[in-house]
């Protein structure tokens, strides 16, 4: 993983010699060596542009994969992804609001860039709270109610986003909105990276203590209960933690699709459903996949392609291959199919 991180650091629009990169990174991280002979501009590009980007890719990939694994276990559905609880649509609504209305309403309050992130975060959190509240109506939270509540909230948020777009036609803002919704690792300084990393580390540590419970959850509500798992409480805690993590990631990087869906499946095809192996492998693969995707995103053309496009283009065929391969049946329970 760190090799890939290193590798990604020196691929970009401006090519920097490999040894220069190594020297800059070593100097900045460990204070080794002397970089006074390297042009400050080069140092800035490597340290302020490429390095945070690579690390953000690592964090986002790991985070999305982690949440993907948790969501699939929590709702016992192989089609679940990190956005299934309506978080992405909530964030979109927030971002839409900030980008399209923001220029007039809140221009004085926030710089436009920071405004989008904050509103996206608020939107994401509000959406997950709404999903949570809706699925708790009438007693225990069940996986079906969670998924349906996610659909409902997504629909509502989607409708309001469209309404805002419709009422405030603004070509420039529309373009930046489209770009935001496709996801990007750009505009990431070390502050963003630190925040995301902190939340991710907390989430990883928490879920590493939950591997046994996640396994039991996969067997369904009733079996998990008879194995002594208190699903009602666990679901609530899991939703809170995953929502915060995803809200932070989405608000900083937009919606990067497919990673949280396919990485858990690819990992399952490699090591099986047991979370003791699945979780670490997913986090690792997610991080690597994301960093590689980002390299493609910024090296194909002089401007950069939104990374969401890359993850879907690369991810879909891999996913198709796994589906066609006979040994991985997604557990559908239909043995003739596997």
């Amino acid at each position, binding site marked *: 993983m760190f090799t890939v991180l290193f590798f990604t650091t020196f691929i970009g629009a401006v090519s920097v010699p490999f040894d220069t990169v190594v020297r800059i990174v070593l100097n900045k991280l460990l204070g080794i060596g002397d970089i006074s002979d390297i042009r400050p501009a080069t140092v800035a590009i490597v340290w302020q542009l490429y390095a945070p980007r690579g690390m953000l890719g690592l964090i986002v990939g790991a985070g999305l994969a982690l949440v993907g694994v948790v969501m699939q276990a929590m709702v016992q559905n192989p089609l679940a992804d990190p956005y299934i609880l309506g978080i992405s649509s909530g964030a979109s609504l927030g971002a839409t609001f900030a980008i399209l209305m923001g220029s007039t309403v809140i221009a004085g309050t926030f710089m436009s860039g920071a405004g989008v992130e904050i509103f996206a975060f608020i939107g994401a959190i509000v959406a997950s709270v709404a999903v949570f509240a809706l699925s708790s109506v009438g007693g225990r939270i069940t996986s079906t109610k969670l998924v349906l509540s996610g659909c409902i909230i997504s629909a509502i948020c989607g409708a309001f986003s469209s309404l805002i777009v419709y009422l405030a036609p603004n070509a420039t803002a529309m373009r930046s909105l489209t770009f935001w919704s496709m996801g990007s690792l750009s505009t990431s300084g070390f502050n963003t990276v630190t925040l995301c990393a902190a939340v991710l580390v907390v989430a990883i540590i928490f879920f590493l203590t939950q591997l046994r419970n996640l396994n039991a959850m996969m067997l369904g509500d*009733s079996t998990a209960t008879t194995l*002594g798992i208190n699903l009602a409480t666990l679901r609530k805690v899991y939703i809170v933690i995953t929502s915060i993590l995803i809200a932070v990631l989405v608000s900083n990087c937009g919606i990067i699709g497919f990673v949280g869906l396919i990485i858990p499946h690819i990992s399952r095809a490699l090591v099986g*459903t047991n979370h003791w192996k699945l979780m670490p492998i997913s986090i690792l693969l997610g991080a690597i996949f994301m960093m590689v995707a980002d390299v493609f995103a910024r090296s194909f053309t002089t401007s950069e392609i939104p990374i969401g496009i890359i993850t879907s283009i690369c991810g879909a065929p891999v996913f198709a291959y796994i589906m066609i391969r006979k040994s991985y049946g997604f557990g559908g329970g*239909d043995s003739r199919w596997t």
Partner: protein
Amino acid sequence: MDIKVTDVDVSVPKKRIVEHASLHVDEGEFVGLIGPNGSGKSTLLKTIYRTMKRESGEILLDDVTIDSMSLRDSALKMSVVTQHNYYNFDFKVEEVVMMGRTPHKRSMELDDDTDRAIVKEALEAVNMYGFKDRNFSSLSGGEQQRIILARALAQQTPCLVLDEPTNHLDIKYQLEVLDIVKASGCTALCALHDLNLAAQYCDRLYVLDKGKIVKEGTPEEVITEPMIKEIYGVDATVDHHPSGQLNVVYHPAHLAKRS
């Protein structure tokens, strides 16, 4: 350990499914629950193994109310075998059985040699050790049922609750599954459809009809021609096989016409 159920009512919106049900299962006893489809057998069992809530009444495990126990506490006392086991994800057989160890482990604790030995023993008990590396979903219904029983055995509880454990099984495995339960010495509460099996394995029987327990006693006392006619609406002859076993023979309509 023993189970005591007193005056339990269970309802879903607009419908009462179980009404004033009381039963008890004593230490080491094998108690059967019989009754037609929709009589509330599964609901009553679910209330006991805590996936459904009761409206009123009391359920005691070893004289302690289940309300004061954590789910983990009750999972250490009671393991459950149900008829429907379908998973959206594919686990290996061994992993499914290993899940039975869940209530015994802290969340960060790894499976150790003791756990693996228990799982091996449980798989051997149901004659499925050779299948341990297969995918659960690739097994036949009967094989899956035996794996679920193995998981319950690996849970090492003093009590087993079984809901139609012999469904999908051919006659050999029907007998085998019930023999395993019997041999385990566990206190067992088991819903059964087959009256002959109920007669052969159960120490006592409860008959559930329209949510109420209408009859209880030894198989000899409970399984009678009038009971079968009244509860199931089926004509039958109950007699004793030369071996001494109770024997129920049904008289379906097309045969009745002929005679």
